């Protein structure tokens, strides 16, 4: 098996700083958005921000952007499995 060579790419400190900036901004925005009365969309809004933040952490901090495709596919797959599981469980509770 050929040795991986994605580690030859060194991520500059700045990139991590900018990502942190984005993450903090999104955190503050998510707090702000939940002050607004959106009813049942409040949770959705807060979760949406969480998802975007997670995407940033996965892509940059966890290095997925620079990793081989199969690792990215695995991550997507596992999240998909989890989402599908929640949806199916709700088939019970939503329609009782």
């Amino acid at each position, binding site marked *: 098996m050929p040795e991986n060579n994605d580690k030859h790419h060194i991520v500059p400190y700045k990139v991590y700083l900018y990502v942190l900036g984005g993450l903090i901004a999104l955190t503050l925005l998510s707090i702000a958005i939940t002050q607004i009365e959106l009813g049942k969309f409040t949770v959705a809004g807060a979760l949406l921000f969480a998802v975007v933040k997670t995407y940033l952490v996965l892509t940059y901090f966890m290095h997925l952007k620079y990793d081989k495709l*199969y690792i990215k596919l695995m991550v997507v797959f596992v999240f998909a499995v989890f989402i599908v599981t929640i949806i199916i*469980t709700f088939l*019970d509770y*939503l329609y*009782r």
Partner: protein
Amino acid sequence: MQPTNTNANEANYLEYQGKYKGLLGWILSTDHKRIGLLYLYSMMTMFTVGVLLGLAMRFELLAPGKTIMDAQTYNATFTVHGVIMIFMIVVPGLPAVFGNFLLPLMIGAKDVAFPKLNLLSWWLYVAGAFLVLSAVLFGSGTPDTGWTFYAPHSFKSGTNLLPAVFGAFVLGFSSILTGLNFLVTIHRMRCKGMKWIKLPLFVWTLYGTAWIQLLATPIVGITLVLIALERIFGVGIFDPALGGDPVLYQHLFWIYSHPAVYIMILPAMGAISEIIPTFAQKHIFGYKAVIASTMAIAFVGWLVWGHHMFTAGMSGTAQYYFSLLTFIVALPSAVKVFNWVATMYKGSINIQTPFYWAASFIFVFLVGGLSGLVVGSLATDVYLHDTYFVVAHFHYIVFGGTGFAFFAAIHYWFPKIFGRMYDASWANIGWLVFFIGFLALYSPMFYLGMMGMPRRYYDYLEEFHGGNILATLGSWILATGLVIIVANLFRSARHGKKAEANPWHSKTLEWSVPSPPTLENFDNEPVVDENDGPYNY
């Protein structure tokens, strides 16, 4: 294929002496082959306990009313029988023994990706087994909840549940680490030329199984932790008095435990997919279709868990959905059965013990699978849930499926593992006695279930007496068969005729090294040629 090892002086893995000597050299070994055998011996020990518990249950059920034990003892017996058989035998099952032993050999590697983690997996297995046994031997009484630990009884029961759920948790951790190890091994340690599309089907099934082990087990892990927390703190997560929903427990439990049955059966199917081509001396029919069906079973099997809960109080929508998906998941299994039979067609059949086991596997698997459709269909399940029909179904498909495949595998790979041939006459007699016992033990249960006999009861109505007598007699015949099989294997391991490298003329890589293999399996890393293949007969 040419044997790749020529150094006749190098010790085989059984005799090799490294840093530690004697017993320590085994229980501290990171050699995947020794670890496979450690699992084999510890699993055989626990299997014996599980069988004795099963025989005790069958003895109790020989006649209505109390025969040898009261209701509480009976409940404890079937609980421990289930916990042992599920968590210590069929879930670790073929991956722990044959996966560990054969995976590196089949892909041309020296060992798995993380050998020390592999040893830890076995130690966790042993620790889990001890924890479960401690629940039986000490404390306020053996757990009586069934292996399913349903809420609310599991957190209200006065019996000694904490060590049992903790033990199951530890066993789960062992399973997760094995799955993790196998996934990295298959991704990263295939030898030169061993592309994915040249992997033996057993390896493909180990791959699919490993994903299930990795992803499903944590969910039962957290669920067991919650039962423990419920018992210790009374949190209320599954307690209706505090707002919890016991059905939610069932969801979480079965989200793991249904995929768990695919952990049990996929490697079993993989072993059958190795044995049939070898004993038909013919290329497997539809190699890619078998791979696709393996992945389909692993994936779709994740989506059907609610079929264990049809009478629990789920919504109608959920019931319809789960029933539909259950029918869909049967399809890829049917593809495999078709492919196995098609492989035999116009093959040059070599009737040996592994082939007897493989052929009878197809029969019992078919019966088990078809009876699964009967309970998977919503309307019929309402009538059959929690009856002996279900008991027959899962023993056919798990004991029949995984069990028969395990026996097939142990005979098939016996020469490679121990360097000796087993006595074929006694092996075949053992198979026949076992098979007759199996049919006598479980077939009446289909009928008893349809007539309404409930499961997990120590007593029954007089009209069920005849079927129960037959089943108990069957259990004695089956046990006799087991004794013959195991005694023969034990004896043959020491005194059997020395085996050559490839007695069955198979094409997969493990047969290209001596029997038994040396410590590092291959002298030089094998190279798989473009024209080579695991089934190129």
